[in-house]
């Protein structure tokens, strides 16, 4: 990874701040039925850290004399993040199918 510049850092902080405001605005009125699916779906999105794990795992050779321990940490991160992502979306889908499926049938 290249060293970060002050300009680059400010861009990242700008994105960070704007995304926080976006998140605040996105959720306004949510019926209680959807609280649990929404929490679960948002939780699956926070599994985006899987991208971080992938990038680190690629940059960290584990077979030579180099930082093997770090690679295994990144591997553990990848497994946990993937569980979070796959499980999270699947569970959310399962819940929503139960709620929405019944509406369609009526």
């Amino acid at each position, binding site marked *: 990874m290249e060293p970060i510049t002050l300009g680059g850092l400010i861009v990242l902080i700008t994105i960070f701040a704007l995304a926080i405001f*976006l998140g605040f605005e*996105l959720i306004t009125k949510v019926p*209680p039925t959807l609280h649990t699916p929404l929490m679960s779906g948002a939780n699956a999105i926070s599994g985006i850290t899987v991208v971080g794990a*992938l990038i680190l795992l690629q940059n960290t*050779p584990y077979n030579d004399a180099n930082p093997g321990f770090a*690679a295994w940490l990144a591997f553990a991160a990848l497994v946990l993040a993937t569980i979070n992502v796959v499980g999270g979306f699947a569970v959310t889908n399962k819940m929503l199918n139960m709620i929405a499926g*019944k509406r369609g049938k009526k």
Partner: protein
Amino acid sequence: MDKAVWDIGYLIASILFILGLKKLGHPRTAPTGNQYSAMGMLIAIIVTIAQMDFKVIDNFILIGAGLVIGGLIGYVMAVRVQMTGMPEMVALFNGFGGAASALVAASEVFRRIKLSEEGVTPLPEDLDLYVAWTAIGLSALVGWMTLTGSLLAMMKLKGGVEIFGTWYRTPTWGPEWLNYVKGLFLIGIVGLIYMSIEEPGNQDYVIGIIALSCILGILFVLPIGGADMPVVVSLLNSLSGIAAAFTGFIIGNNVLIIAGSMVGAAGLILTNIMCKAMNRQLIDVLFKSFGGSDKEQVTRTKVGSDPEEVAMICDGISKCVIIPGYGMAVSQCQHQVREFADILEANGCEVKYGIHPVAGRMPGHMNVLLAEANVPYEKLIEMDEINSEMAECDVALVVGANDTVNPVARSDEGPLAGMPIIDADKARVVVMVKRSLSVGYAGVDNDLFYEDKTMMLFGDGKKMMTELISSMKEL
């Protein structure tokens, strides 16, 4: 072609996350919303892998293995989970997400320290150092806290934990001095982050940060009452998003920062919505113990009723409101409840379900359970709406709920003061299915039990509902 072009894929993924989260908030579009975010995630992963150098082949085996193992475990867990286990499952996944971010941070710091020790690449300096080590420290703090906090929240949702065959109940309150201890831990962690920047090559500081953060997560959740767990899980969900955003700063990746901070903010709003439904302040939930150590002793008694008596009362009524609570989730009697409602409806009775926003251990908990039992969505009525109809209601059937129908909440005293409730007491007859007269999570006695118009069916929800159904059929 410049590899940066691939980053457009991250932009598309971010847009899909935004649309997905927006759509998840409305009943009709929610399934589409979930698919959008899942698609965004898939794009983000593909784009990441597509950018990689295909030189280091060993790492690709690890990457493939990690994705397959994680994907399989996640999928199997999601398929096998029962609807009643959903809150625990969300808490567990949440902990995994936090841990993943924390592990990425740990991996990066150990890698850099190791590389500098071997003289491959020197440790970062100046701005690079400040940004990387601050982000690593914060990501570790939030991530490890989310992991231990979520695991404890999961145990608390179950009510206890089994270690070597012995069941330990999790506490539901804590002394006030614990807040100062938490503060000290936080100061300690911030101090360690500062010291790790001063001496970036020393990994002891990093290990210290990890250890203190793990303990802080436990201390944070430990004194919070079981009834407040949904709020805590939602807050931890928000934290795991923030952890992902900090991880984004470590590796300088936009999509992590966008998705992470968006989930962090949206999670905070959701937490607030949930607090409002309980008429509580977030600060009180987190720092004032609820439920208390001194639970009221129940001294009054009430004679229980038979299912036959209740069946006779229910014969020929024209309006019934069913008010489910955590007890329904525990005994898993949603199918019996539905069957009972079917019988009533066959006799020309109007049946509705009154759903309190915090009934159960998770917002929407009751909705999900009843949906599983094929109860039409239109019959699940929210608290405010159902309260205006309660006066015309012949029978209010309370299944395993207590605090959410406790009239004492209308007064200004006690832990329930001011919490909005479902006005079950306004119905002509109240039938309560409950195991005993014991207090609910808030630890206060319920006057509704002792009213003359209240009939108590003491026993397990599933058993009592089954008996009630057979009594109805015999009429």
